[in-house]
């Protein structure tokens, strides 16, 4: 069995003391930032990128992955306890979870979220291990036209989920793609949009944008809101154990959520958020058994389903990144950046050229998930305490780490100044209701997309129909088109607005 051999290799890598330590550190840190509202995994991973220069590729990626799923986990903790979803994907969890907490059943809610996440994480890991190799095979058949079409699908898929106007979200992608054009053209060697500034001929660092927009921009936005609306309240958590009845109800929801999440996570742009929304809808559609609490008033299924789904989705969203080198969301985009920093070209060849890294990372996800459940259930009390750290101590700390990180990118002040510029840009986006995540995705994919587009056109001698006549490419483009049409349909549009209303 190849699968077992590969997993064995992975576990032998993941179970070294060093890698266990980094998985632990990542998961803890992820939980921490997931608990703290206003500090997301994107900003944190961006902050930590400079530090991975000092690490090997495998522990570095293991740590970053840990932050990612740790944040999913931490985000749901605050969603349940204080109705503040730390992450966008736990927005749904807050609906029923917070109601349960209000009714004194925070323990069972947290346990259902934890157990559901863990189960989903295990299944997700197995799915990655099983499906990554065949997908990698497929990826080798991809030409430039297919890659281009796949990126179009990925980008469209990502914005289908953005709240607010679809046109604005697509505009943000294109803005990101354009910012990615500030570089030296790879084919002709001409510097573009550099305004004779030598630093700009290497392009803007994506860390700079991520920190400026997600780090500083968010801080400015947070400070602009009056304290009274920012304050968070703590609550006592008693009685962790769910009753037998709880488990009986939650378990099928966990199974459904996991299946749905694994499926949606693989789709480019799908990921955790969509999975959580879909799972909640499914649970609602399943109807109520006699004696059950209605949805929206503290139904445990409304916590278990979406939580399992978002964790499974978070897990399987690694598949497009690992097999094709195409990031389905902003966090994965940063992971791709981290790989590039470590000199690994992301793409289908990673599995054969760096099997230790590939399988080690996969195995470490399972290890990390196990650590999360063992650690977090007893530690919930501490996480709550953390919420009492006032924002006025927190945000200068974030600023300090970000600024040092910016400086160490190239040991130059230029990146720090760029960060300041993007702080303003980020605040403008916030004020205008433009979501920045699609911009970052576009920015990362921009150069790749251009290269593939130009290569495809070269190969077809300037014939644009090449994207429609090659079956794989045509299929991917059709799927992208279908996504847009589906979102535009009046009935879905109404549902989508409704779903995002809870977020506001």
């Amino acid at each position, binding site marked *: 069995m190849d699968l077992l051999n590969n997993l064995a290799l992975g576990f032998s890598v993941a179970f070294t003391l060093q890698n266990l330590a980094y998985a632990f550190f990542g998961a803890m840190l992820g939980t921490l930032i997931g608990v703290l509202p206003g500090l997301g995994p994107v900003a944190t991973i961006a902050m930590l990128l400079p530090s991975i220069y000092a690490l090997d590729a495998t522990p570095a990626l293991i740590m970053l992955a840990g932050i990612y799923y740790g944040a999913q986990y931490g985000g749901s903790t605050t969603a349940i306890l204080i109705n503040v979803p730390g992450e966008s994907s736990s927005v749904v969890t807050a609906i029923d979870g917070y109601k349960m907490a209000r009714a004194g059943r925070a323990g069972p809610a947290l346990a259902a979220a934890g157990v559901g996440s863990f189960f989903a994480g295990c299944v997700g890991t197995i799915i990655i291990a099983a499906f990554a190799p065949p997908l990698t095979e497929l990826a080798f058949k991809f030409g430039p036209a297919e890659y281009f079409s796949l990126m179009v699908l990925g980008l469209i898929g990502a914005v289908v989920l953005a709240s607010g106007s679809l046109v604005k979200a697509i505009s943000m992608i*294109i803005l990101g793609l354009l910012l990615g*054009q500030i570089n030296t053209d790879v084919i002709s060697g001409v510097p573009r949009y550099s305004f004779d500034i030598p630093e700009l001929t290497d392009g803007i660092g994506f860390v700079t944008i991520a920190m400026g927009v997600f780090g500083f921009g968010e801080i400015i936005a947070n400070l602009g809101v009056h*304290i009274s609306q920012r304050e968070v309240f703590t609550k006592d958590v008693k009685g962790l154990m769910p009753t037998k009845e709880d488990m009986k109800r939650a378990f099928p929801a966990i199974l459904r959520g996991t299946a749905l999440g694994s499926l949606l996570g693989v789709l480019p742009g799908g990921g955790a958020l969509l999975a959580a929304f879909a799972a909640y809808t499914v649970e609602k559609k399943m109807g109520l058994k006699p004696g059950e609490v209605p949805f929206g008033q503290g139904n445990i299924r409304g916590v278990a389903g979406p939580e399992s789904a978002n964790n499974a989705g978070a897990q399987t969203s690694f598949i497009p990144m690992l097999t094709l080198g195409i990031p389905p969301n902003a966090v994965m985009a940063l992971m791709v950046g981290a790989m590039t920093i470590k000199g690994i070209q992301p793409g289908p060849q990673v599995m054969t050229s760096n099997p230790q890294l590939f399988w080690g990372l996969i195995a470490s996800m399972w290890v990390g998930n196990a650590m999360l459940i063992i650690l977090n259930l007893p530690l919930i009390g501490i996480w709550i305490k953390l919420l009492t750290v006032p924002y006025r101590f927190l945000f*200068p700390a974030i600023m300090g780490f970000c*600024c040092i990180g910016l400086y160490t990118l190239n040991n130059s002040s230029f990146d720090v100044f760029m960060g*300041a510029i993007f702080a303003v840009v980020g*605040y403008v986006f916030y004020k205008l*209701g433009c979501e920045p995540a699609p911009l970052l995705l576009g920015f990362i994919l921009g150069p790749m997309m251009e290269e593939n587009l*130009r290569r495809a056109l070269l190969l077809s001698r300037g014939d644009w129909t090449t994207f429609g006549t090659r079956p794989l490419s045509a299929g991917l483009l059709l799927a992208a088109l279908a996504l847009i049409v589906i979102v535009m349909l009046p009935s879905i549009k109404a549902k989508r607005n409704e779903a995002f209303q809870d977020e506001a």
Partner: protein
Amino acid sequence: MKIKSERDFWSGLMFLGVGLGFAWGATFYSFGSSARPGPGYFPFGLGILLALLGAFTLFEALTIETEDGEKIGAWAWKPLIWITASVAVFGYALPRLGMVISLPLLIVVAASAGDEFKPKEALVNAFILTLGSWLIFIVGLKLTIPLWPPFLGR
């Protein structure tokens, strides 16, 4: 003509302007042909596309009714200026004054952007964070960050 959605109006204007700007900038680079696309090919197309989407957003902002006019609301000038300034000052000061001076400077200036600023707390915070950063980044990760001002002759 009345603006129905302030946010979309300005977003549309921003996309339109930036798109046209990039497209105009692309005309300075060789466009090439479809069979042999030059460095200006992709950005020109993207710029035009962004401008079109911007124009569409603008059009919608002027025609489609919204409930509250989607106002942009008051700008948080104080945090905007202080936070941005603190970052810029840090960038300027770090190579010249070292981390020991520029990091506390950053933290105190940034902290003063908040509406519950207490100088004493900010100083304590600055001290702890500088010590922590020294331990993490310079001792732990061995990054090359200037610690002391160069004129101290290190």
